């Protein structure tokens, strides 16, 4: 019995809620002209932005073109590829620079003078000396 009463009360509350919502809806239709005009402006701006999105040109809120970010947004895979390529290129350059640094360090810290490594006849004569021994 109490469950039945509870259900009845819930149904009544539900009906009342819908009546209140109906009143609110009716009241929402009666806005001032100024408000309606501003809503219309907002809607027009949104529709314009939508049309530009669809046509592939993005425009910022202030009306300026946002070509780079718009391009990146629309070509996500390509832009991700470009970023990856830039990272790899940076890595390769860093590696070659560090290799050059280590060879410079080797030349400077070796027992032989640097000219010995430049002289082409030095290595064959060194090898001949080894063979004679």
């Amino acid at each position: 019995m109490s469950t039945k009463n509870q259900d009845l009360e819930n149904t009544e509350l539900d009906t009342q809620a819908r009546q209140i919502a109906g009143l609110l809806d009716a009241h929402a239709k009666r806005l001032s002209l100024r408000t309606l005009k501003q809503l219309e402006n907002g809607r027009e701006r949104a529709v314009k932005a939508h049309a530009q999105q669809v046509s592939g040109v993005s425009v910022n809120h202030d009306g300026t073109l946002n070509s780079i970010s718009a391009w990146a947004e629309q070509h996500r895979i390509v832009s991700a590829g470009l970023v990856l390529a830039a990272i790899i290129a940076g890595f390769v350059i860093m590696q070659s620079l560090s290799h050059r640094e280590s060879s410079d360090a080797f030349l400077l810290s070796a027992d032989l003078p640097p000219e010995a490594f430049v002289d082409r006849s030095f290595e064959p004569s060194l090898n001949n000396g080894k063979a004679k021994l």
Partner: protein
Amino acid sequence: MASSQELSDFLRDVERRAFKQTVYAVRDDHAALDIVQDTMLKLAEKYADKPVSEYPMLFQRILQNTMRDYWRRQKVRNLWTTLLSSFGAGQDGEDDHDPLDTIDVEDESDNPMVQLERSQTMVIIEKALEKLPARQREAFVLRYWEDMDVAETAEMMGCSQGSVKTHCSRAVHTLAVILEKHGLGSRAISQLGVET
């Protein structure tokens, strides 16, 4: 993908409701207008590729999030206002009255008595709605005004269906008690000629 015309029709259909819902939540007409306009732009810019059938949910979600952002910003601003208010603030802008602000459109040619009763009832309902806790108001608006089902409302609010039912039940109960206190029972509201 929705066409621009479909978007325009959709926005025309929801903009007034969205504005009033935002006014009840933020209690500031200008802020509410900004929020609704911002929501429209975000929908158009970020979801241009979505079909129009997804717009109602997306629009409501953006609207609720934009309202939350507004509250967050407002919290910080209020802190500064409270700190600086002791230095004395004038009542700026109170004299600025524009007749356009008070001219209503679609003023139905109802019985004047019904119109008067309806506007009085609306004042009571609006005040009651503003007094509701934010989550209860959100649940009520989405469930009954936006006519979403419990599952959709729960998804929108990011909570369980049980929570939605609880929020709705409490909200409706509170509203019913307030209306009853003013002698506005279910029968009185239905006599105001609103279809449900």
